[in-house]
């Protein structure tokens, strides 16, 4: 009995050590410390030094630093953050920074962890970003379901105000900054920057037509930049440790670390901070503790439900960075790796996803409004076997008719799994129609509790 315990402990230690070598703690440095969300903890780890340093620099220099570090948007599109900041006009209008904490992409749960465990890192990032852009106001748009992170954030903002890090003349500079937490009402589409802006203004979350882009006309028609929580939280490290230190991690074109949310059929699902360019299979097999119950890998959705699925054989030599995943035919997206084991019904998966998009389509543009609902109906009918062979083609064409025809990318996101799954796993769809239902007794190999 004792021997077994020792053995288990050894295994765990080996695991832990191994993972420690893989994981790099920049964003997650304070996670797990007692009262990690508190001001004292953050200050003890050298917090708010970067902001102090940045505010002593020229704003343009700060933006250049972030551009040089090659920090790319962590929300999904991967647009260089420093470049985005330089789009802000240099006039006297009030400017706004919106931090996108409307983390709604299925499979993504990284921003929540930042806000839960280290809200001050986000606030420090906001201070630096606002200084670089000359913005005096910042909204943290947080999804309504994140009640706990919102409370923690509000508390952290209060602490920062008390310390004088927010408010008037911060760090002794002639610079005022106010930060508000704006809670959303539960719409996926509000994670899209222009509908986020509409929502901040108090209206229905309908995306706006671009141009004009937010830097020209954003919140209350004023210049606005919208950045993801993780992007902003990555900024303090760059300013504190320098460009070279940040570029040590990751690849040439995708430098730095990223939070990966791994979920699905793995032994240790969770959020891991890894350098970009980390091998996908290593993430699954080592960091996440391998496949659940020793199941065989069937496919991986590497960047949240809106990115194309990769079959097991396509995953073999894929690295997790922006370029490698595009080359592999997918996208890094928000870094939400969903692992799917053999025995999972892809049709069921599509049914769930189409239902999600049909529920979340804002109803503004015709193709998305009608297409998502129709696709959900067909996907459901195929799953229960109440469909004809021609329905697969209709389903695929619905996706094709939605792509690129709408104001915002929600239709593209919805079309992606539709077109992708029906073409990559067509035989499963055919089997459902021929067999009048799902061939598996249970569409998932493991019952989740």
């Amino acid at each position: 009995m004792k021997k077994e315990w020792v053995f288990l402990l050894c295994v765990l230690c080996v695991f832990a050590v191994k993972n420690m070598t893989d994981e790099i703690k920049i964003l997650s440095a304070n996670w797990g410390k007692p009262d990690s969300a508190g001001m004292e903890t953050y200050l003890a780890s050298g917090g708010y030094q970067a902001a102090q340093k940045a505010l002593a620099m020229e704003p343009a220099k700060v933006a250049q630093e972030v551009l040089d570090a090659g920090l790319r948007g962590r929300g999904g599109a991967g647009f260089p953050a420093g470049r985005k900041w330089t789009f802000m006009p240099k006039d006297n209008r009030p400017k706004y920074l919106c931090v996108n904490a409307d983390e709604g992409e299925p499979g993504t749960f990284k921003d929540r962890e930042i806000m839960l465990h280290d809200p001050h890192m986000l606030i420090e990032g906001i201070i630096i970003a606002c200084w670089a852009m000359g913005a005096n106001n910042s909204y943290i748009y947080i999804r309504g379901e994140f009640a706990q992170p919102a409370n923690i954030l509000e508390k952290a903002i209060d602490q920062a105000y008390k310390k004088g890090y927010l408010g008037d003349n911060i760090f002794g500079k002639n610079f005022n900054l106010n930060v508000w937490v704006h809670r959303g009402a539960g719409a996926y589409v509000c994670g899209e920057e222009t509908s986020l802006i509409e929502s901040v203004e108090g209206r229905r979350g309908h995306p706006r037509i671009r141009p004009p882009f937010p830097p020209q006309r954003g919140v209350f028609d004023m210049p606005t930049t919208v950045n993801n929580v993780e992007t902003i939280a990555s900024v303090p490290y760059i300013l504190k440790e320098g460009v070279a230190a940040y570029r040590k991690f990751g690849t040439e074109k995708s430098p730095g670390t990223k939070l990966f949310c791994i979920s699905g059929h793995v032994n240790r699902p969770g959020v891991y901070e890894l350098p970009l360019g980390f091998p996908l299979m290593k993430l699954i097999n080592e960091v996440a503790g391998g496949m659940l119950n020793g199941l065989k890998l069937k496919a991986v959705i590497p960047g949240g439900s809106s990115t194309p699925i990769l079959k097991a054989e396509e995953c073999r030599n894929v690295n997790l960075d922006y370029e490698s995943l595009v080359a592999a035919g997918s996208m890094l997206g928000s870094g939400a790796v969903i692992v799917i084991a053999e025995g999972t019904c892809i049709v069921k998966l599509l049914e769930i996803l189409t239902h999600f998009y049909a529920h979340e389509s804002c109803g503004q543009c015709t193709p998305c409004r009608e297409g998502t609902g129709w696709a959900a109906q067909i996907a459901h009918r195929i799953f229960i076997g109440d469909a004809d062979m021609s329905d697969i083609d209709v389903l695929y064409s619905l996706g094709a008719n939605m792509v690129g025809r709408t104001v915002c990318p929600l239709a593209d996101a919805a079309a992606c799994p539709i077109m992708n799954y029906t073409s990559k796993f067509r035989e499963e769809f055919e089997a459902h129609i021929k067999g009048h239902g799902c061939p598996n007794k249970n569409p998932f190999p493991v019952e989740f509790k």
Partner: protein
Amino acid sequence: MAVKIKINGRELSVEPEKTVLQAALEAGIYIPHFCYHPRLKVSGSCRMCLVYIEKTPKLQISCATKVAEGMVVETDNDEVRKARQAVLEFMLKNHPVDCPVCDKAGECTLQNYYMEYDKEPSRLSRHDKKVKKGKRVPMGKTLVLDQERCVVCHRCIRFMREVANHDCLTDARRGDRTVITTFPGEPVDNPYSLNLADTCPVGAWTSKDFRFKKRVWFLTNSPSVCPFCARGCNIFIDHEKGVAWRLRPRENNAVNQCWICDEGRLACKAINDNRLTKAFEKEGSGRKEVSMAAGISAAAKLISESRGRIFGIISASATLEEAELFKKLIKTMDGTLGSGCRKEGQDDQLLKRADRDANLKGISGLGIDRIAGEGIVKAELIVVLESLYSEPINGTSGKKAVVLSPKLSELAQSAAVGIPIAAYSEAGGTFVNFEGRAQKFEAALELKGDARPGVWVLRDLAQKLGLEI
């Protein structure tokens, strides 16, 4: 500085603030659209006006794309046609296709576009269900909303917000469950609400007044001018077999853009109801119907008997032509005259004018002033030319009167002689609106009964009196 663009191979020179859609429409190249409306802000949501623009990765909506120097646009290539078909298919996915009972059928944009750009059979499976929504939602006094027919183009929302200045509509729910609605319990109660029925590209908004009354393809659309106030809105009278079924706005940027008020629109009923169709003479306490000739002779007799002691009243909504003849006639008979006005309303800064007579400006221009003081009291006989919307005039009751009227008004009922004349809708004529804009319009409907245009009757009367006018 105009920019040069090319649409379907045609070189055009357009102003730089124009959008591709505007440039195309002005050049006579039609791009189908639902949500775009020339008078409303761009919404860009219907995706029907997608066009191919060279050097852009995907199709662009022409309603929101500004023209640029050297832009090359294709509005009718394969890609665009397919995209349009797809949009129409999506629109029809949850549309009830109840055209046989829909009032919009025949003038429905969706119906027309399907015939023009799609004509493909439905790919809906027999298993697919349409989303159920409100089929007849009462929306205030004038309108009924069918949420199932709606294509969510947001024109109604934008009209109420931007034109009517009454932000009462919104969309509720999401995805294919999206419906247009008001805030809970709020009716669409606005003096311009019925414009929604015209602005709606499909049969979602229907007017309670016109609902289920008439198929639109039986109607003849005759241009006319609304006589209901001094604005002089340009309208269409939609009529069949001498019956006017509805009034609709006719576009005129200088006067009414493309809207009219509900009051003016619903005044349509007056064209059909309570009209005077036969001449009559007073007989005891009743009326005796006579022929037009006999009526005119009787009127001429009364007028010549009272020569010098006549007071002429002309409705300020009479046409310029009628007013001119009327003035000459009364002046030659040594009478005095004035114009009879309707009660003042309220100026609403949009279309409605406080002055509710169509031609007050024109008539005062002829030197006929509003009735003032004692003229009527002193007169032995009053000669009145009424119009369709005339209201009773103070001091006229109990007077011996010759009345030329299109309707059986209070005054006409007690007149010594009554002669039917045509209303604006049957006579045509000229109105001068409050800005001094003279608007000439033609007759729309056939004459009713014995009624003749006012100018004819006045001419006959003058002949009977032996006058040269």
